[in-house]
C-alpha cells in the first residue's frame, strides 16, 4: 500500500507541473496587467518610474516560463507569494480557511453517504415501486438543479420563512468569538445543501448496485435457504452492491469542490472556496494559482483514496499489482 501511495505521489509531480504551467500560460495570455492589479487604485496616480520599478520588482517583464519556474521553486520552500486582495501571504490565507472548508465538506459528505445508502437501498428493494420511482425522480431532479439555486431556496425557507436556522456566516454577527455551538448551528444549512447536491449521485449508484446484487445467484440462494429478508438485504446485497460505490467516493472530490465553491459563496462561509471567488473577482493571481494547485492536489489525493479503498474492500484486487 505504501508503494502504491509512493508511486501515485510520483505520478502527481508531472500533473502538478502541467497544471501550474497551464495556469501561468493562461495568465501570460491574459490582457490583465499584474502591476496595475498589485498597485490597485494607487496605480492611477503613480508616475511611470514608480510603475516601472514595481514591474521590475514583480518580475512582470520576464517570460511566463521564468516566472513559473520562480514560483515553483519558492513554493517548494513554502512561499506561495502574496495575496493582493487580502494583503496577506497566500499560505496564511489558505491556512486560516482550509479548516472551515474541510469541516463543511466532511460533514456534507458523511450526510450524503449515509442518506444516500438509506434511500438507495430502500429504492432498490422493490424496483419499479412507487417508492423507487419517487426516489429516482427526486434524485434526477436534484441532480439537474443548480446547487446555488437549491442553496438560495433553502435560505428562503429555513432562514426567512421559518426562521429556524441562520442564513449565513460562521457565527452570529453580535458574537466576537467562535464557539462550537454557534458554528454547529451555522453549519447545518450549508452542509445540508452540499449534502443534497452530492446525494443524487450516491443514491442512484447504490440503488443500481443493490438492485443488481439482489438479482444475483447468492441472494437467490440465501432466500431459498430461508434467510431473513433483512439479512439478505444488508449482509448480501448491500455488501456487494456498495463495494463499487465506495471505491468511487474518492473520485467525487472535483464535484465536492465545485459544490463547496458555490455553497460557500451563497452562505458567506469563510472557507477556501469563497476565497477563490474573491480572488477571481479581484484578479488576485498568486492566490488563484495556489488555490488551483491545491484543488488539483486534493483531486489527486481523492484518486489515491479511491484506489486504496478498492484494494481494501475488494479481496480480488491486489494493491501490489496496481
Amino acid at each position: 500500500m505504501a508503494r502504491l501511495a509512493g508511486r501515485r505521489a510520483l505520478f502527481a509531480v508531472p500533473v502538478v507541473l502541467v497544471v501550474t504551467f497551464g495556469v501561468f500560460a493562461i495568465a501570460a495570455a491574459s490582457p490583465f496587467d499584474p502591476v496595475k492589479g498589485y498597485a490597485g487604485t494607487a496605480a492611477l496616480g503613480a508616475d511611470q518610474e514608480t510603475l516601472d520599478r514595481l514591474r521590475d520588482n514583480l518580475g512582470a517583464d520576464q517570460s511566463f516560463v521564468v516566472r513559473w519556474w520562480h514560483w515553483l521553486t519558492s513554493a517548494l520552500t513554502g512561499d506561495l507569494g502574496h495575496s493582493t486582495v487580502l494583503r496577506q501571504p497566500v499560505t496564511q490565507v489558505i491556512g486560516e480557511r482550509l479548516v472551515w472548508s474541510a469541516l463543511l465538506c466532511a460533514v456534507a459528505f458523511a450526510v450524503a453517504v449515509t442518506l444516500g445508502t438509506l434511500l438507495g437501498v430502500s429504492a432498490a428493494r422493490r424496483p419499479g415501486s412507487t417508492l423507487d420511482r419517487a426516489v429516482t425522480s427526486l434524485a434526477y431532479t436534484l441532480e439537474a438543479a443548480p446547487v446555488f439555486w437549491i442553496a438560495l431556496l433553502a435560505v428562503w425557507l429555513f432562514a426567512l420563512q421559518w426562521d429556524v436556522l441562520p442564513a449565513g456566516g460562521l457565527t452570529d454577527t453580535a458574537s466576537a468569538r467562535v464557539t462550537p455551538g454557534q458554528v454547529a448551528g451555522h453549519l447545518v444549512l450549508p452542509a445540508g445543501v452540499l449534502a443534497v447536491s452530492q446525494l443524487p449521485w450516491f443514491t442512484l449508484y447504490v440503488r443500481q448496485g443493490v438492485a443488481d446484487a439482489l438479482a444475483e445467484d447468492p441472494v437467490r440462494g440465501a432466500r431459498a435457504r430461508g434467510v431473513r429478508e433483512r439479512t439478505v438485504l444488508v449482509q448480501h446485497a448491500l455488501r456487494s452492491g456498495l463495494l463499487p460505490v465506495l471505491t468511487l467516493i474518492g473520485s467525487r472530490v472535483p464535484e465536492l469542490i465545485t459544490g463547496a465553491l458555490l455553497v460557500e459563496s451563497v452562505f458567506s462561509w469563510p472557507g477556501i472556496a469563497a476565497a477563490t471567488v474573491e480572488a477571481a473577482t479581484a484578479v488576485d493571481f498568486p492566490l488563484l494559482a495556489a488555490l488551483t494547485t491545491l484543488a488539483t492536489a486534493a483531486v489527486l489525493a481523492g484518486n489515491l483514496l479511491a484506489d486504496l479503498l478498492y484494494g481494501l474492500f475488494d479481496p480480488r484486487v491486489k494493491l501490489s499489482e496496481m
Partner: protein
Amino acid sequence: MADLAAGRTGTVWRSRGGEGRSTRTLRLRTSAVLLTATVLAVLLVPPLVRLDQQAVDLAAKLEAPGWDHPFGTDDVGRDLLLRCVYGLRVSLLVGVAAALTATVVGTAVGATAGALGGWVDRGVMRVVDALSSVPHLLMGVFIVAMFRPGVWPVVASVALTHWLSTARIVRAEVLSLRARPHIDAAVSGGASRWRVTVRHLLPGVLPQAATAAVLMVPHAMWHESALSFLGLGLPTHTASLGNLIQEARGSLLAGQWWPTLFPGLFIIVPTLAVAGLAGAWRERINPRRRSELML
C-alpha cells in the same frame, strides 16, 4: 450534475426490469415535448412577441405570480416569464457555442492522438489526464477571472474545461476504428495518413462526437449560470439564467421567492429533457447495455 450531463448516469435511469415499455415511451415523449417546447420558446418568442424584456414598470414591482405576470415581476417590475425566456436564450446560446467549441477542439486533439499513435498519443493523453485533475468550475473561474468580462471569455472557459472528455471518447473510437479492415484497405491502397484520418476515421467518429456534444449543452449551460451567479460570467445587460438568479438575491432576502425559483426551473427542465432523450437514444443503439451501469 456533471454525471448527469455527461450521460454517465444515463443507464441508471432505467430500473432493472421493474418498469414496462410504456413508462419508457412516456418518458421519451415527455423529454422530446419539453425539449421542443424549450427550443421553440427560445427561437420564436423574441421575434413573435414584441415585448421588451427590459420594460420597467415600477408600479408593478415584485408582484407575485398571477394572471398578468404568470411568473411574477422582479424588483423593477419587469415580467419574469419574459426575462426567463430571454435568459434561457442567452444561456442556451452560450451552452451551444461552448459545446461546439469543446467538441471541435476535443475531436481534433483526440483524432490526432489516436491517428498518430506512439509517443504523441501517450504525451497528449498524459496532458489530458493532468488537466482533468483540475475541478472544472475552478479552472473556469480562473480563466474568466483572467479574461473577463464578456460572452467570449465565458464560452472559452467552459469550452477549455470540457474538451477533455470528448478527446478521450474520440481517441478511443479512432483506436478501435484503426483496427478495422477498411482502414487497412485504404492504407494499402496508398492513402496518406492525412487522407485516412479525414476521409475514413473522422466520419466514423462523428456520431459519438455529436452525442457527446448534445450531452454537453446542458452541462455548459449549468457552468455558464454558475459563473454568472458568482458574478464572474456574463455582463448584466445580456442577462442569462445565472444572472437572473444572482440579481434575485436581494428580493429573496426580502422574502420574494419567485424571482429565484423560476430561472432555476428553466435550467432544470432542459437538462432533464436532454438526459431523458440521451438515455432513450443509448438504449436504442445498444439495448444490451440496458442494465449495465456506466462508470
